[in-house]
């Protein structure tokens, strides 16, 4: 790529947050009319890099050059003005305004009377859309459009800002194959206009279809940048994950226990399809896959938080109907959710109140609480889980992530469950607490509980699981025992790359 063709250059970008170096000396460049894909696992730094580019974050070190000139992007609005537009997975659109109004919100054209010139706005909107081969009724409300059409509105918005660089974050995750094809032809039109596209995606196949170049990030660093024609899918996957397993995990348990939980043909339209597996007592079953593959949805359905269209759940061999979390809890299930601050804890309540939350009824008699029993149980659990808090009445919102997670766990241990499901158990937790939680999980398993562990961290999945299931786009695509599993195999199954 010659100098004059480069439109965007990010040089030596570093960005740190408390406790984590999100980006380290990352350099990235994109040429006019080029589609440059950015790939990497969850937590590799992709979204941080995007946010530094569009101005949501300021880099600690490094510089950004647009068209050869250094720019300081202060905020996303200024970034848009400079020509850097971003389309996130969650669109920034007004549901009850029409397409044209959304494109020109805040910059509505006016006529001589100072009133909004709807005709001009509509015709301009149509022109922008047609420029890249999109056709929409610009008078329709956003809420009446399909996801793919809403995305077109976002693209038209970027065009209206005369974008030089368009960042697209997982643009196809909610599109059908047909809609993806349409998006690709739109992207090719954008390329024809000289607009550079930074394309972030987990879908390796699509990257090979649409991108000219690809940059792989891992743990905040650039692993490599290659022309697409110079790599193949396998090599790319290798670049994404190649790391040594240097973390120590607790020793795995013995296998061959009774089956405690069976899922049979679980399906819910739009979320997952035909999920069947067995979970044994004393086993840690890892459930791996990319974000959006449907793992959380399966766990929530098993826990009664969401419904299923078809399927059966068996506990200890008996078919059960789990219609609500209440049912699940009564059957001996527990769920440590993905989002502990919002789903796992009542953040403003104390450690004690959270701990006894699931078993309040069993504590007291009739309508009354039994504060003494609650306190006893809490003290016991705090000590056995080694939760660091000044007192049992301490507000959980003040604890560290690791300790909060332990409180969530203690909620289920006040009445030992048969099955505990963990959704991203150590996300956002420091190394020390991570290890403690891993030990706790293995201890629970050794005591006979069946553990389902959803995790996007490959080392954790491989280090903790006795068996690994992989989901992709709502289906089970992999089933490996601990012995046969490798990062490569799991990642390949998760991304759909053939070995």
């Amino acid at each position, binding site marked *: 790529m010659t100098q004059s063709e480069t439109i965007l250059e990010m040089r030596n970008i570093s960005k740190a947050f408390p406790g984590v170096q999100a980006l380290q000396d990352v350099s990235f460049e994109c040429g006019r009319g080029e589609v440059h894909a950015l790939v990497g696992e969850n937590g590799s730094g992709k979204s941080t890099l995007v946010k530094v580019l569009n101005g949501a974050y300021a880099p600690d070190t490094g510089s950004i050059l647009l068209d050869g000139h250094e720019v300081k992007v202060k905020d996303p609005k200024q970034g848009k003005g400079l020509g850097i537009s971003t389309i996130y997975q969650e669109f*920034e*659109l*007004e*549901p009850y*305004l029409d397409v044209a*109004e959304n494109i020109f*919100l805040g910059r509505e054209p006016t006529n001589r009377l100072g*009133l909004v010139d*709807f005709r001009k706005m509509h015709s301009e909107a149509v022109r922008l859309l047609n420029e890249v081969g999109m056709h929409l009724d610009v008078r329709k409300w956003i809420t009446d459009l399909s996801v793919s059409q809403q995305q077109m509105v976002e693209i038209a918005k970027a065009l209206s800002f005369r974008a030089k660089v368009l960042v697209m974050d997982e643009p196809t995750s909610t599109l059908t194959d047909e809609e993806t094809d349409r998006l690709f032809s739109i992207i090719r039109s954008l390329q024809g206009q000289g607009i550079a596209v930074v394309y972030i995606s987990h879908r390796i196949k699509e990257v090979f279809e649409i991108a000219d170049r690809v940059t792989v990030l891992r743990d905040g660093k650039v692993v490599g940048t290659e022309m697409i024609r110079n790599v193949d899918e396998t090599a790319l996957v290798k670049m994404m994950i190649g790391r040594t397993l240097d973390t120590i995990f607790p020793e795995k348990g013995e296998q061959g226990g009774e089956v405690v939980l069976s899922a049979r043909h679980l399906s819910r339209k739009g979320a997952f399809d035909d999920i069947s597996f067995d979970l044994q007592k004393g086993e840690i079953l890892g459930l791996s896959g990319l974000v959006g593959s449907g793992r959380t949805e399966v766990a929530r359905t098993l826990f009664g938080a969401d419904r299923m269209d078809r399927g059966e759940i068996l506990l200890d061999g008996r078919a059960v109907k789990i219609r609500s979390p209440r049912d699940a809890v009564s059957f001996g299930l527990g769920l440590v959710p993905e989002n502990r601050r919002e789903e796992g804890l009542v953040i403003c309540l104390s450690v004690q109140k959270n701990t006894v939350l699931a078993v309040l009824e069993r504590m007291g008699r009739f309508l009354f609480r039994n504060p003494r029993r609650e306190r006893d149980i809490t003290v016991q659990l705090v000590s056995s889980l080694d939760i660091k808090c000044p007192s049992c009445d301490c507000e959980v919102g003040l604890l560290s992530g690791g300790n909060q997670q332990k409180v969530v766990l203690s909620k289920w241990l006040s009445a030992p469950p048969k099955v505990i499901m963990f959704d991203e158990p150590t996300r956002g937790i420091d190394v020390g607490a991570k290890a403690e939680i891993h030990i706790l999980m293995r201890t629970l398993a050794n005591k006979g509980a069946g553990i389902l562990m959803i995790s996007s961290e490959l080392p954790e999945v491989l280090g903790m699981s006795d068996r690994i299931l992989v989901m992709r786009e709502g289906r089970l695509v992999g089933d490996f025992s601990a012995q046969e599993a490798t990062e490569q195999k799991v990642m390949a199954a998760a991304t759909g790359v053939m070995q």
Partner: protein
Amino acid sequence: MNTMTSAKGVPARTRIMQGLARHGEILIFLLFLVLCAVTEMLAPEFLSGRNIANVARQASALGIVSIGQTIAIISLGIDLSVSSVATMAGVIAATVMVGKTGMVIPATLLGLATGIVVGLANGLLIAKVKLPDFIVTLATFSAVDGLMLVYTQGRSVGSITPGFAFISEGNVGPVPTSVFVWLGFAAMAFVFLRYTRLGRHVFAVGGNREVARLSGVNVIWTKILVYVLSGFLAAAAGLMLLARMAVGYPLAGQAFQLDSIAASVVGGASLFGGRGGITGTIVGVLILSVLNNSFNLIGVSTFSQFVIKGFVIIAVVAIRARGETRK
């Protein structure tokens, strides 16, 4: 998963419901006609010239305050202070006017000014200090209400001139003057909401405040303007009431608080923000006014009045909600 998708391949019955909800104005207008017909059957004096003029005058005052309320609701806000602002405008204007023709203009301006001042106070507390709309306007409602009760000692005060009474009690041909005042404000509000940038921004702020902010809409000023308008219109409605009642009365605007919200919501405004319109609110006001009138003519007990009113409001809102796209 993006939550703004709409379903394709939707069954016919749902599509009809959706259509009805979208063109809700037609639905509620039909309801209005039905109510008129039923009332006429049960109380034949309903369609007499005198009664219609009466209902029209009542409706005008409610209609004016409801315009402001609708604007507030569209912006994802609510103005619970409209009743006491209306009362205060009337009380102050009556006190200043005391039957002197020379004081009509100053009294009117002062009355309207009090509405603007309270609206500004509401707007600043809500938009700049970032307190919840409900709490702020509830507080101003209580404060102003209390102020009025203390000032008037619970008695009526002041007086108006016959000239002033004309704005409500007069006629232009067969049509009461108050209707012109109401429709005048309504037309201006209609143009404001539909054809001005600020008006469109009111919808944007109510629909998705964050998107509006990111698009460069000045959310703070927009919200302040909304409450100033609501205060101003509440005061104007209060002056219309004064013209009817001829004296300043401390509980004059009492019904406005909930009726203006009911009229707006029946008219299609969503309490979740971003949706609503003047035409719908006009029909909503007509429905409520006809209901009130029918209760008087037929002689329905107070208890039944509340029940019937509540039922009508719930029914309309429920049908609307069903027609809305499922998420």
